[in-house]
């Protein structure tokens, strides 16, 4: 399957659409259930509720589990934040009954990035289906109590986003900035790229979030060749602008995305890595003293990702961005 189009859609469209499958995640954040509460169950044929194996004795987690069990599915698929195996097997069971076209809804507000990357990887290699439409929905976070700084535990490529992988060219790193300025610097120290670009959310959930992001990352921003300010609420715009940013470096450099900002920006980076297979996307895993219970501003970001069997001619956002064919030669 080919990633055919990435587009922003209205939340109302999501609320009115019929889905073959919906995936939710139950974790320690209050916003886990925000979108699920607005959806009509009868519009969704199958539901998979993923539960974090880690931090599962938390009060908010308990409430979220109860909600999902009562209104959606009492069979939660529990898996680790670093494991995507159950995603594939769970979707496979549902997709077995599908034919030409499959509509999937993914609420990635509180999901591990490995999980929603897993959904994308599954779609990419799905067999026997002509078209897959995945609507990604995200409840914008309200970080009223900023958590303790993250201590990095590992740096890994997101599965399926390994890029060219043989490091022989000059390196370009594109950092998505969040509130973890020191962690981003730590990654920079290890990657030691030839060129650095950064992007951050503006407009963000609140104006002060942009300021905080800038102040936390000032040292990295000063080292960057360019800083892009991209709207939090538009994955389509973010995808397009980042595609334009890396376009001159393709075929000449090893490009790595390190998205450490809000999830719609992470999603855009993963999508780019899937679209341009020589581009890598790194995930920085870390731990905190205390998990941050993120609420929501009430705003929802909805993005449609369209996979199609490869056609000879395609009209898509990718053409708009005037991107060259994917493979480095």
């Amino acid at each position, binding site marked *: 399957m080919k990633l055919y189009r990435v587009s922003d859609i209205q939340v109302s469209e999501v609320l009115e659409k019929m889905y073959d499958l919906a995936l939710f995640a139950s974790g320690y954040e209050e916003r886990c259930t925000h979108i699920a509460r607005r959806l009509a169950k009868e519009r969704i044929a199958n539901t998979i509720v993923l539960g974090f194996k880690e931090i599962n004795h938390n009060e908010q987690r308990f409430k979220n589990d109860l909600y999902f069990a009562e209104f959606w599915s009492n069979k939660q698929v529990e898996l680790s934040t*670093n*494991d995507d*195996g159950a995603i*594939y*097997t769970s979707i*496979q069971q549902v997709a077995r009954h599908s034919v030409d076209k499959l509509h999937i809804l993914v609420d990635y507000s509180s999901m591990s990035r490995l999980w929603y990357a*897993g959904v994308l*990887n*599954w779609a*990419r*290699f*799905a*067999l026997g289906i002509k078209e897959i439409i995945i609507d990604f929905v995200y409840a914008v976070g309200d970080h009223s109590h900023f958590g*303790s*700084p*993250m*201590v*990095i*535990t*590992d*740096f*890994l*490529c*997101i*599965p*399926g986003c*390994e*890029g*060219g*992988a*043989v*490091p*022989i060219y*000059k*390196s370009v790193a594109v950092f998505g900035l969040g509130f*973890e300025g*020191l*962690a981003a*610097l*730590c*990654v920079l*120290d*290890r*990657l*030691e*790229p*030839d060129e650095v670009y950064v992007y951050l959310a503006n407009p963000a959930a609140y104006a002060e979030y942009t300021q905080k992001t800038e102040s936390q990352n000032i*040292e990295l921003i000063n080292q960057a060749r360019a800083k892009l300010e991209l709207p939090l609420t538009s994955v389509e715009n973010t995808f397009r602008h980042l595609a334009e940013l890396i376009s001159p470096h393709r075929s000449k450099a*090893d490009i*790595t995305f390190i998205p450490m900002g809000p999830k719609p920006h992470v999603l855009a980076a993963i999508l780019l890595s899937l679209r341009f*297979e*020589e581009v*890598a996307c*790194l995930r920085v895993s870390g731990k905190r*003293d205390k998990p941050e219970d993120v609420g929501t501003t009430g705003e929802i970001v909805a993005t449609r990702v369209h996979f199609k069997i490869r056609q000879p001619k395609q009209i898509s956002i990718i053409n708009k961005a005037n991107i060259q064919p994917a*493979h*480095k*030669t």
Partner: protein
Amino acid sequence: MSTSKPTFRRDLFEIENARNLTRDELVATFVPTKGFWRLLSAKNHIVLGSRGSGKTALAKMVSHDHLSRLQDERAQQIVKSKAFIGMYVPTRLEWVGALKNKPWQTEREKEEFFQWRLNVSSCLAYLLTVRSCLESYVDDIGHRARIESELAAELADSWSDGKFKCDTIRSLQNYLEDIEHKKQQQIIRIRSRGGALINEDSVGGTFDMDLFSPLRRGITLASRVMDFPEDCTWLLCLDEAEFLELIHHRILNSLMRAYSGNLFFKITTMPYCHYTLGTNAGASLNVGHDFEYVYVDQDPILWAGTKGKEGLRFATTVFTKRALVSGNKYKGVTLADLLGPSKLLDPKRSDWTPGSRNMALLRRYASEDTKKRAERLKSNRSHFLDQIARKMHGAILLRQSVDRLRGRGELDVYSGETMAIRCSDMNPRRLIRIFNSFLLEAIWRRNEYGDIRSVAPIPAKEQTRILTAFSTSSLSRVQSEPDCGPELYSFLQALGIYMHKSLHEMPLTTDQISSLIIEPSIPDLYWNLVQRAVGLGLLFPNVNANNPDQMPERDGTFHFGYVLAPHFRILPRRGRARRLSKILENVQVEVPSVVKETVRPQQIEFIFSNDPKTEGE
């Protein structure tokens, strides 16, 4: 019409990492060290060095395409005689990140996948080297093309089981890059589908064999067509092995343990990041027999000079070479002109006559014992200058400068050429970053045509501000170090504050505390922090002069990185050592807010006291 391209010269002070320099830039700015020449030998080596210590530069310079361009008689002789043929394989974070992101793999699958990828990467490195060899050893272009074609065809046949055909090295490189990518895709495809398709072959199956077997085959073929002598030694430089895991090190160790014919390994990693001496063959590696360590943090320069001047000479050589390759901008600029002398570290002309300011400061700050000793030595001027004045000048001046600070006043004592170099700890990357920070702040005078004519000296306060900001940044970024960032930050804070208090709150003696003594009873947690600090170049072991490459194990003296001196307002100079246990008994840490947030229940507890104990060791 001229066809020559205009020459664009990059400002090399903006590039502190050897990995990011082009081949010609690295060759032109490289300063050969003792460690470098040691690597050009038929021995396995593990190069240990803190971050930025120049490991990558060494490993890259060993590779044939770099060494063959080095303007050095000894290097040219090695290349000409075909004595050593070096290959460079980086294992960057991205490369390792694509290795470790498959937690579902069994230990055996992990090992096999690592071997497969390293086989492909080493063959790619080999191809770069072969191209360089062809250019060096086959003058006739037509003959070179025929040899390349013959070799490429044979290699393609060998590495693809006859499935791929080509007649250029470039095509073969493309083929290897493609199979690496296809392999990753195949793995995720099989995982997402729950299995492979019927009749689906493993991508790049020919690289599933023993580690470096495809490379050895390549060496055999190249030796045959290029007529390499029988005693020609191939050196495989594997860079940044600290990112690998213990199982990978064990695999590499197994190769070093076994007889490897004419192939030897040069592996770079951070101190304490050669994770095991174990092998997969039952017997452990024997240091000195199977391999040797080369510790490059202790390897500032090759050429011997006046004791104590080596560092200065190394640093000025680095500066001069970079300035030269960066074009006319820095023509004629010297560090001494830009930064001037150091008030604290170049005390040659200080006045120590009885009524002088220095004597008054000595009376004010020195301990009673030191004053008595000074009194005794007063009659012998040379003894007094050597045993008291030389040792105390910097400390009393620094203490007085800090004492006199009021309100928004600024220090000016962290300034001067010697100070800037000292604060780099002779770490090349740090040196270049410091140079770049100064050059960015320098005021350039231009002539009437707009060309740079000269540069104004940077004021001492400005220098101090730059070095202090650099020092603080070096410490604060420790906080996000994997696994132990906050603990390491607090630990270094504790050491720095203790040394600060000893200098600024206690009567001064002739030696200031600048080091810590580690005893075998050190708890694991602290020992882990010491090792990490050494890896980052924030602590340095005082190595045994007879065995300078052996890293101390839970025992020994470690000096505090001079880079942190401006932040803690201490003297970047070797002084006394104090037992770590004593330091931690006495220290009072004012944990800054950013770290307060990270303090976790299991974090180190520092014992605070308002009255630092002063007994010596």
